[in-house]
């Protein structure tokens, strides 16, 4: 792992006392490798390494640490600063219902996350209501209805209506049911699909969700930044749900997205079951990314 690789870099070098530019350069080559292997975006890595180098060169090595440990300490601190510390909460409307809309690329995990989020909120005492607004994918509505049934949450959809019309009607239906949170599932779409991005912009403009969450697959590679930037620019999102974290993907996309959009990861999906949704821990993610 990175800690061992950095130790190996520094056992070769005899410099103690202050970290020389050469020592730091060697160490940062290893850090760069680790971050790129973890799918952190190329440019984000470049900026990050420059930041760390600036802090590390000439720094006094603490008596209790080896030079390798000193560099790791700086890397961890800089990574924590970039990832943001502490958990990022969901924001609720002062006057219910709170409307949450899930968006993202095809197959990222939105429909499952919609149901998981409802289950999560129900356990927190909320009364969720789901709107199945993916009218395109075969059996998408059926998928959400089955999941809704499993967790005892009502699901609204209506065939033959436009996405905008059914989203608006769905929210109206939630009110008499005394539901205080409405989660809207949308169809997967490419950020470069004009028609579909226009549809999303229109839905957001008319429905005015209090939270828009971008659902991102943890195994996403370098493209994560392109996708996040366009979604931010076109619909703007408040946070990210990072999915499939139960796999062995290092999840560098999380760092890239946070660094480039400033938006936090709010929730982590760690499995296919409906209770597999957890608050996101940025510090744990940093360790996972570094490897």
């Amino acid at each position, binding site marked *: 792992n990175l800690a061992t690789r950095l130790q190996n870099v520094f056992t070769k070098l005899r410099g103690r006392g202050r970290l020389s530019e050469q020592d730091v350069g060697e160490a940062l080559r290893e850090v760069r490798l680790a971050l790129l*292997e973890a799918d952190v975006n190329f440019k984000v890595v470049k900026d990050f390494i420059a930041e760390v180098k600036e802090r590390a060169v000439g720094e006094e090595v603490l008596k209790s640490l080896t030079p390798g440990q000193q560099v790791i300490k700086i890397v961890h601190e800089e990574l924590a600063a970039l990832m943001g510390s502490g958990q990022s909460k969901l924001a609720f409307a002062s006057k219910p219902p709170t409307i949450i809309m899930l968006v993202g690329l*095809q197959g990222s995990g939105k429909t499952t996350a919609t149901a998981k989020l409802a289950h999560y909120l129900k356990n927190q005492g909320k009364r969720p209501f789901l709107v199945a607004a993916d009218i395109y994918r075969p059996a998408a509505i059926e998928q959400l209805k089955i999941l809704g049934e499993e967790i005892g949450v009502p699901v609204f959809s209506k065939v033959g209506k436009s996405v905008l019309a059914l989203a608006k009607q769905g929210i109206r239906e939630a009110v008499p049911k005394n539901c205080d949170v409405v989660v809207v599932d949308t169809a997967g779409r490419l950020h470069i699909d004009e028609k579909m991005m226009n549809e999303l912009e229109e839905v957001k403009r008319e429905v005015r969700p209090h939270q828009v969450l971008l659902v991102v697959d943890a195994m996403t590679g370098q*493209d994560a930044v392109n996708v996040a930037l366009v979604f931010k620019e076109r619909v703007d999102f408040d946070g990210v749900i990072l999915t499939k974290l139960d796999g062995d993907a290092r999840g560098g996309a999380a760092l890239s997205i946070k660094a480039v959009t400033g938006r936090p990861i709010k929730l982590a999906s760690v499995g296919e079951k409906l209770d597999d949704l957890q608050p996101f821990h940025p510090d744990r993610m940093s360790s996972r990314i570094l490897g």
Partner: protein
Amino acid sequence: LAHFPVLDEGFWEGLEEALIEADVGIQVTQELLDKLREEARAQKIRESAQLLPRLKEKLVDILTTEKQPLFSEGKLGIFLMLGVNGTGKTTTIAKIAHRAKIEGKNVLLAAADTYRAAAIEQLEIWGKRVGAATIKHRRGSDPAAVVYDAIHAAQARDVDVLLIDTAGRLHTYIHLMEELQKIKRVVMREAPEAEIKTLLVIDATTGQNGLSQARLFGKALEVDGVVLTKLDGTAKGGIIAAIEDELKIPVILIGVGEKLDDLQEFDARAFVEALLS
């Protein structure tokens, strides 16, 4: 890359950035650039315009394999589709079925994803759209049993192409990989006369984890080919260069959209041009 006519550090950094941003990965990128640098030195190449075609050629070499016809003639062709969650397996089955129908083949689908909500319904809808029947059991039943029935139905009905849909699964779940092994054993035991194609479906947006997927799926079952989906996005899918370089699993098809005809045969040269564009 046209910005650096001179072979200075900026040129090499530009190449490295292009390859890494295409998800080729740092290891294969370094190997390729080391070879290219050595070639430039040995052959005294001074202009970048001469090196870019050589880099493309190296990538094309990694990605080129002997083309096999998609459908076998005169015997049952079985496609076993596998991959992690959400990569496009079910939709790809619909596309391959569509192509087979256009070629006049008798097609049957097996709904062996008995786990995920509405997986069977999703495949059935596609089946109706392409004109292929779907063999299914109830949700929660043993996928190997669905496969068993589908194979015997295919043999009885003189089907040309049988496509087996399986549940998405992360390669790190050993019991799920064992379930796939059992499914494949059933296929091989019940259809020894068939030509079996085990295809791993990989999402083009996947980063370095794609290599881990290919390694572990490949280790659990022999994988005959990769289908790279969602290439209609902005992701370049360069991870297949790493997969092919290390594991020699060829990419045979690409998915370029959500419609039935959004399926193309893999063309290494076109892929490399797009990768470095």
